[in-house]
């Protein structure tokens, strides 16, 4: 009976219910999408690094999780020193240049030969590898996002590159140019951002790392697997703060809308509350009915929010193919719990108020 009462009350005012549902849906969508975007981008970046196939990364000590922001402070000759070490099969340098003109992207300057040795090469969907100094490779997602094809001219860093090949995504970056040309362009002669090391066998990774640390004590040496595991929002304090802020904002929206909705509901149903009291409904029963209504509204909002998240994701991916939005069951559940808690907090004051209404006054309310 209570279920029927709650359900019918909810749909007695369909517009108000829809607005409440929408607020919850937006709240849930915000949480899922923002978290999905950040973790998706992080995970996708990590996967691309993993996709290179290297075992060890050597970077400057000042480097952060965001390799593209590091600059190019290391001499390229470090590659030769590393190559001489026992159990090192191949080494490849890379120069990463972050570009914000015309979009946000990281350009990878690579040495095609050593990069192929470490990574087993690209999977070409169209065209061929880097041959000339102005050649450029783009991955399929970047090609789709920027509407480029083999033979097109792609201007980046104020330089006209010729797109000679489109490769399968998932390896290192999205845009690849010859490292020597990029060094000239950014004024980083014989410099590299990162060295990627492939060991003869994966079991030798620790030994090779030790040796590298001995010859390069002032550099950061870490296994690629470790980098992968660290590419989460919890390891990036500012990002975690950003996510928490978004969650707080989303909860505030939901809480306030539900508060207003239930406050109006209680006001509108003052006489109904008086009737329930005349029938002998206890304060607890009245609070429970209102909170049950809120929970049901929330549940409908959560379902809508999850649906909306997938819709927003599809729309984003259509508009920005290089984006990655990861929607996980864990965060869907967290978003749902956050929404329910926020809604119950928002509804608790109106529910408490309703339970305390004087029955006689409530019955006389117009």
């Amino acid at each position, binding site marked *: *009976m*209570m279920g*029927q*009462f709650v359900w*019918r*009350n909810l*749909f*007695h005012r369909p517009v108000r219910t829809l607005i409440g549902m929408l607020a919850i849906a937006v709240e849930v969508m915000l949480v899922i999408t923002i978290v999905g975007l950040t973790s998706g981008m992080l995970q996708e970046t990590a996967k691309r690094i993993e996709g290179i196939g290297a075992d060890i990364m050597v970077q400057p000590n000042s480097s952060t999780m965001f390799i593209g922001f590091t600059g190019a402070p290391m001499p390229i000759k470090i590659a030769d020193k590393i190559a001489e070490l026992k159990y090192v099969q191949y080494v490849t340098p890379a120069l990463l240049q972050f570009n914000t003109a015309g979009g946000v992207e990281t350009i990878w300057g690579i040495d095609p030969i050593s990069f192929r040795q470490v990574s087993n090469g690209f999977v070409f969907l169209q065209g061929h590898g880097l041959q000339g100094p102005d050649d450029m490779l783009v991955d399929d997602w970047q090609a789709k996002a920027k509407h480029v094809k083999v033979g097109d001219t792609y201007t980046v860093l104020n330089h006209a590159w010729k797109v000679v090949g489109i490769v399968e995504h998932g390896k290192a970056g999205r845009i690849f140019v010859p490292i020597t040309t990029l060094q000239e362009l950014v004024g980083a002669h014989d410099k590299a951002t990162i060295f990627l090391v492939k060991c003869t066998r994966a079991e030798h990774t620790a030994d090779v790392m030790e040796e590298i640390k001995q010859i390069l004590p002032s550099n950061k040496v870490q296994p690629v697997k470790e980098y992968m595991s660290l590419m989460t929002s919890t390891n990036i304090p500012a990002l975690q703060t950003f996510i928490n802020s978004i969650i707080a904002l989303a909860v505030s929206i939901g809480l306030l809308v539900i508060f207003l909705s239930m406050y109006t509901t209680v006001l509108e149903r003052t*006489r*109904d509350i*008086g*009737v*329930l*009291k*005349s*029938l*002998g*409904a*206890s*304060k607890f*029963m009245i609070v429970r009915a209102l909170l049950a209504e809120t929970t049901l509204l929330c549940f409908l909002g959560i379902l809508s929010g999850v649906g909306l998240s997938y819709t927003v994701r599809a729309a984003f991916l259509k508009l920005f193919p290089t984006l990655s939005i990861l929607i996980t069951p864990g965060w869907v559940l967290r978003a749902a719990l956050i929404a329910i808690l926020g809604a119950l907090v928002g509804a608790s004051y109106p529910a408490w108020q309703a339970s305390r209404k004087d*029955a*006689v006054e409530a*019955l006389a309310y117009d």
Partner: protein
Amino acid sequence: MGITVTIRTNSAENTESEIKTLEPILKVENVWKLYHAGKVEVPALRGVNLDVLPGEAVAVMGPSGCGKSSLLYVIGGLAKASRGRVLVDGNDLVTMTDAERTKLRRSKIGFVFQRFNLLPALTAKGNIAIAQYIHGDGFDPHRFEVVTKMLGLDGRLNHRPAEMSGGEQQRVAIARAIINEPKILLADEPTGNLDTKNSEIVLEMLRRLNKDLGQTIVMITHNPEATTYFDRVVHMRDGVIVDGIPAD
């Protein structure tokens, strides 16, 4: 000081001595109800005394503002008397907490209001069933059928209040009020919003509840014709009962 009403009934079968041995189901003793309008105290009831026997049907009449509704709400536990005693089936409402009065109201008192006061989101069936749910025993289909049949609600149970006439709504309200077999049915001008024909129907229903099922009824009314359906009429003025005479 209030005036005690002498109890007499219409039934020729009961002698006065037999009546005196019956314990009143409702006993109102020197009840005062004071409302506060700022610093001013407004007495709605000024020492009311009223006894109602089980199975009696009592009509309370009086001009607007004489305290009829206040008396009804105090009897029903919706408002607390400022002074005096209100005994419903032996339970003194004045000494009870709000939660205790609510519990008592749930099991022993049924209300019918002038404005029907049905829950608009529920169907007629839902409005009646919710009273059973609140009572705590769950839906009793047998009792439900008996009551709805008696009140002629077959075929209207799946309609919401907005889809029903005033008379039908009031009959649903009566069904809701009696579904849990309350000791006392309190009716606050139940025909006040009805036309003549529906008023007669509702009053006849109440009369049948009283005569056939022995339902104790206390009804407030402005309608002098309504009093013909009741055993006893009590008149109120300025917060006191001034006269309590048999309906005949």
